């Protein structure tokens, strides 16, 4: 951390970063300038802080990893509260941030000032990304009472960091940047009269009248929500890759990097290696260059580029090499990544020692896939299955997106790792189904469902969707066996 260091991007070719007024936060007593609207982790990163926590046993330094509250790399003590996820907690003037000592100390109950509230609603949607927002808007427009909770400071999910224009059909947001689609959905959410709670985490499913969830808002407000129907759209978390020193600060999930860079406008590093040439890796590579980062190369373990080739072409013509059949084998650095070793893989996926090369980077983006964030569904008692085509362990569901638990639905990445466009369609389908399930059987509801199913089918007609379609058929069959 340096007094004058400011890694914020004040100019960007595509994005405008709206920063609030400057405030002062304190890291172990040292004052750091932050801007209202930033998260603690983003503000610290902008001032050069790279270490957020240390492992309990070996005291190894940890950077942030996911940037969206799903890993536990950035837990710090904030105003006396232990284990605060600094990546999703907004800054406040005079906030005191400390490194956690050992396991952290629980504050006295008298210091916590807990508030409690109970809410009853027709539909509770957990997760305000493309799927959850689409579900909430659709169901509310069909006349249902909807509450949506999201643990980030702003709804929009991963759309808020997708600064590229989307594929798709013209009538469904094609050629519009993800960041703009997020704004459209937010406007629709406001006009649809949905109650939405941000900085609110659904922490568990409990016994209640119907579907009873405990939600904690701003780390101090306990809200119990009882809903007739539950739509879980909790998205996914980024996968880790095993290699020596993979926990060094500077090695982050590609989506985490997007959050810091595209939501909060902070330059994530100077020289980057990208691991994985799927759409996420390719797109993040392009966006890093837009933010002024030197992208050294993209390595991809399989023999083929996994993402759309036009995304690959965009970074190739910027001079970025894409090395297929290559991977990262190790990282080195003193408290922060300084060198990454990459090597070619042989036919049996083993690194060829003689091809190892060390490249000097201060940023490694892991874009090696995602895993559905299904925890809440499993805790609620939904039956699950391991479906590799869908990204791992998922709740068994049918074409209508209903799980094996009566009245509990899924939509988006939590049901299958796919993309934002398909997530929005699934959200609409789930929203329409739930509304009809609650007796809003209007022709509009039926039309919405039929239209969205048709649009989803059209989106899934590309070769890239073959895997997902296979996986979906598997879970649909499993659902029929169970019901």
């Amino acid at each position, binding site marked *: 951390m340096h007094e004058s260091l400011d890694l914020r991007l004040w100019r960007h070719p595509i994005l405008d970063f709206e920063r609030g007024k400057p405030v002062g936060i304190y890291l172990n007593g040292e004052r750091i300038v932050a801007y209202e609207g930033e998260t603690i982790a983003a503000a610290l990163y902008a001032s050069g802080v790279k270490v957020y926590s240390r492992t309990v046993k070996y005291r190894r330094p940890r950077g942030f990893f996911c940037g969206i509250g799903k890993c536990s790399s950035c837990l710090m003590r904030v105003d006396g509260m232990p284990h605060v996820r600094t990546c999703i907690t907004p800054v406040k003037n005079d906030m005191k941030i400390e490194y956690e000592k050992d396991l952290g100390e629980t504050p006295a109950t008298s210091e916590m000032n807990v508030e409690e509230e109970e809410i009853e609603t027709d539909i509770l949607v957990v997760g305000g990304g493309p799927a959850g927002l689409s579900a909430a808007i659709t169901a509310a427009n069909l006349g249902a009472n909807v509450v949506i909770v999201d643990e980030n400071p702003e709804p929009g999910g991963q759309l808020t960091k997708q600064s590229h224009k989307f594929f*798709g059909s*013209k009538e469904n947001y094609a050629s519009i940047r993800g960041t703009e689609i997020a704004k459209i959905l937010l406007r629709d959410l406001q006009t649809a009269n949905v109650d939405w709670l941000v900085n609110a985490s659904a922490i568990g499913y409990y016994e209640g009248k119907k579907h009873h969830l405990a939600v904690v808002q701003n780390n101090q407000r306990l809200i119990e929500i009882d809903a007739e129907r539950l739509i879980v759209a909790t998205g996914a978390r980024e996968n880790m890759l095993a290699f020596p020193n993979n926990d060094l600060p500077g090695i982050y999930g590609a989506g985490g990097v997007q959050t810091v860079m595209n939501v909060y406008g902070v330059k994530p590093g100077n020289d980057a290696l990208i691991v994985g040439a799927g759409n996420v890796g390719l797109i993040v590579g392009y966006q890093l260059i837009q933010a002024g980062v030197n992208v050294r190369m993209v390595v991809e373990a399989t023999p083929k580029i996994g993402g759309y*080739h036009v995304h*690959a*072409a*965009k970074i*190739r013509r*910027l*001079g970025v090499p894409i090395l297929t059949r290559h991977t990262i084998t190790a990282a080195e650095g003193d408290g922060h990544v300084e060198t990454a070793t990459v090597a070619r893989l042989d036919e049996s996926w083993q690194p060829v020692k003689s091809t190892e090369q060390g490249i000097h980077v201060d940023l490694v983006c892991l874009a090696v896939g995602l895993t559905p964030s299904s925890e809440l569904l499993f805790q609620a008692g939904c039956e699950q299955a391991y479906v590799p085509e869908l990204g791992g362990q998922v709740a068994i569901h049918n074409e209508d997106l209903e799980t094996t638990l009566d009245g509990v639905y899924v939509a988006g990445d939590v049901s299958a790792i796919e993309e934002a466009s398909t997530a929005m369609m699934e959200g609409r389908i789930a929203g329409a189904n739930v509304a009809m399930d609650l007796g809003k059987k209007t022709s509009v509801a039926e039309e919405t469902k039929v239209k969205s199913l048709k649009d989803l089918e*059209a989106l899934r007609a590309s070769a890239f969707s073959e895997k997902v379609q296979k996986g979906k058929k598997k879970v649909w069959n499993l659902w029929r066996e169970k019901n």
Partner: protein
Amino acid sequence: MSSYGETGVLAPEDLEKILPREERSRRGPVAILECIEKIPCDPCAYACRVGAIRKRSLVDPPEVDYDKCTGCGECIAICPGLAIFVVDLKSKGNEALLMIPYEFLPKPKSGEIYEALNREGEPVGNARIIAAREMEGRTTVLTVAVKKDLAMVVRNIGRRMR
């Protein structure tokens, strides 16, 4: 299958299938849609005011009717894959005009000279900026002049030359 899926760079055999005949390019500006994969995407077909771009289905690659295409460039910034370019070989001199999508800072200005980069990002010559137009969605469409024999090779600009 060509090497496109391993390199991210269209192979000569891929280009052969999509490029217009040379006589057409010499007649005036024409759009080159470097989009050969099945992608669920269709805005280019709607952007075209003369109906020169056809999508048989949402995922089928676009087909261009080069006789209808006027090379207006309306499709360039619309393409989410930034895969559309316009090539104009009409001039009698040694220069061709190219229109390319561009999303980086600093924004090039007319008259400036940049390195001309090929599909692999390698410098192959110079590109003179003729115009820089910011389009909807903040994508800039650059019109650059390059040597005629580089018209089908150059697809980006690199460092600014002094």
